């Protein structure tokens, strides 16, 4: 589904990713771990299409297409979803208006008729239950005045609405209490199936108790330095990232 080869990326002449390789197939959940500032969010942003980076080298192939040639909205309509580490507050744009625009543009992209107001509201109620959002979103602006936990739940809600093929969760667990963490994880678990894939970026093993990954990768200084099964996460938790420096010595 996603094939990243030798990705080298810089921002303002500072290299962040240094020849990263990653292969993701349908039905897989990949966890990417690593200390701060090693390029985890950069990787997420690049897949979603944020254009503040310079791609120096490498390729990203997504379902047989060159991802680099696709606009941000096109990537989203082809099934890529990014759950933001810091969801943006957009005062004045209501959640309903936002989601309805997004859903209907996605449907239009796939040659489908727009959802009627009733169908849309029904879908929204369904997905709200899934992520246990109890508040009325109708009159609320996108993320405005949302607590940290609400913002992250809102990301998962949007993911549930848009039903992506490849979802990237960029530190969705940071700043969450244990209840919110469970809600977020449940949302992911209910959505995961044999046709989609997830990239879960996290610092902590904690989230991976709830979302069981098929693969764990360690991103360190712009490269994936170690890959393994879910047990790798536990090992990292015990030994810390410093341990990664030692084998090479």
């Amino acid at each position, binding site marked *: 589904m996603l094939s990243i080869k030798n990705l080298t990326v810089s921002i303002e002449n500072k290299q962040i990713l240094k020849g990263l390789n990653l292969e993701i197939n349908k039905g897989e959940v990949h966890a990417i771990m690593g200390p701060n500032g090693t390029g985890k969010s950069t990787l997420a942003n690049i897949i979603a*299409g944020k254009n503040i980076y310079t791609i120096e080298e490498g390729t990203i192939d997504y379902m047989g297409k060159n991802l680099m040639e696709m606009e*941000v909205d096109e990537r989203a309509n082809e099934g890529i979803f990014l759950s933001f580490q810091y969801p943006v507050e957009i005062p004045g744009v209501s959640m309903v208006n936002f989601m309805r625009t*997004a859903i209907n543009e996605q449907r239009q*992209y796939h040659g489908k008729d727009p959802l009627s107001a009733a169908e849309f509201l029904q879908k929204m109620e369904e997905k709200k239950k899934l992520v246990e959002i109890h508040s009325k979103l109708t009159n609320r602006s996108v993320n405005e005045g949302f607590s940290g936990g609400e913002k992250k739940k809102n990301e998962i809600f949007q993911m549930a609405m848009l039903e992506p093929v490849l979802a990237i969760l960029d530190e969705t667990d940071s700043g969450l209490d244990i209840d919110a963490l469970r809600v977020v994880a449940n949302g992911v678990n209910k959505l995961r199936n044999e046709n989609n894939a997830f990239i879960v970026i996290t610092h902590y093993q904690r989230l991976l108790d709830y979302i069981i990954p098929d693969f764990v990768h360690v991103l360190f200084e712009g490269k994936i330095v170690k890959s393994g099964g879910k047990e790798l996460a536990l090992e990292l938790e015990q030994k810390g990232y410093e341990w990664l420096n030692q084998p090479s010595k």
Partner: protein
Amino acid sequence: MQTTQKSIKERIIHYVENHSGEILQNDPPEMAQLRRKAFQLFKTQGIPGRNLESWKNTDIQSILDQEYHCSPEPESRKINVETFFHCNIPDLDTLMVNTLNGYYIYRHSPLKKHPNGVIIGSLAEAKKQYPQLVDENYGKCAIDTIDGMISLNTALANDGVFVYVPDNVEMKEAIQIVHINHNEERLLTNVRNLIVVGKNSSLTLVHCDDSYTKQAAFINSLTEIIVKQNAVVDHYKLQNLNNNTTLINQVFFSQFADSRVHSVAMTLNGGLIRNYAHTRFHEPGAEANVLGLYLVDKTQNVDNQVYINHTAPNCTSNELFKGLIDDQAKAIFNGHIKVHRNAQKTIAYQNNKNLLLTDKARIVAKPFLEIYADDVKCSHGATVGQLDNDALFYLMSRGISKESARMLLMYAFAAEVINEIKIDVLRNQIDDMVKKRLHGELDICETCVLHCQNREREITFPIDMSKI
């Protein structure tokens, strides 16, 4: 005003001196005196030029160098306005009055006294029927010494709308003033409205300026609104004019103790529009919210001037003006708050926010506080920015096209002012119009429902902007 060799000032002086009989004919004595004084003042002031601080960025002299005609009293007073338009906003419960090229359209009668004592009609007619009422209030808010457009209006205006709400009357229906410009030749129109709202009374006023032809017009409009003790006035202005039109729109509020004014000005289209809002607090406890939204593109110019004069203690003023400026359009915001020495416990806020959508769009913002009292809460600020890239990326990352994402953000920016419209049906209608405007569907020149540039097409009104 036949020759273009003379300056506009000379032509106007010439016109007044030759027509003084007609101009003065209906005036009660005090008013005639006021008019003569204003004319003398105009002779020294002339048309305001760019040498005046508040006109530095708006050049009307070069516009007026072209030939303009003053409009004589029209035969169209008895015109059937329904041939122009009909109301398509089903739930907007308003009493509508119209002026055409500066003159009140009679419809059923020139002036009507309603059972609750409210008088609505032609100002010229009110001078005849209620000379004392007019004399007591006319020219009491407008300050002719400010500049030549104001003195010119006092000197030349013959008609407009007169509204009198007696004490203790709550006007449930909004009064809607629609000024129409419909002209075959270039017209210089001076229109004057006088609104008096008595003690403990309330009034909602919707004031629209529309053009129906593509011909250039210069409208010099002045409205005086007197808000007596504990009275409440909601005032909405909507401007949707062709790009050849120049509109100088001046509103003077006089506020007495504990009165409240809520004023929202929406500029959607127009060649050159200058809005001057002047509020004076005469007595304590009064409050004014003065808001505005301007959406301009192409070569349009909009100039918003707000002057809030705190002469009494314990008054509150709150200004918010927001602008979306596209293409090579230019916007000006000058906000001036003056707090006099005895106006203690004044609360005055002023805020101007602008989004520039292109490199060539321009805004000149000048927030200004002048404070002589020492126990006040005042703030002012102006921001100029572009659309937030992080928000754009966020929206697009959900599959929303760049165009739609921009639209959502522009609309969100405008919504803060739109939400201040308290009449639901009016707010919804304006909301629709702003959305259409942002989609480029309310462009007065090309795609507007009025088709004023393309008159062989039938005029139909899927949305009736003239009625808003």
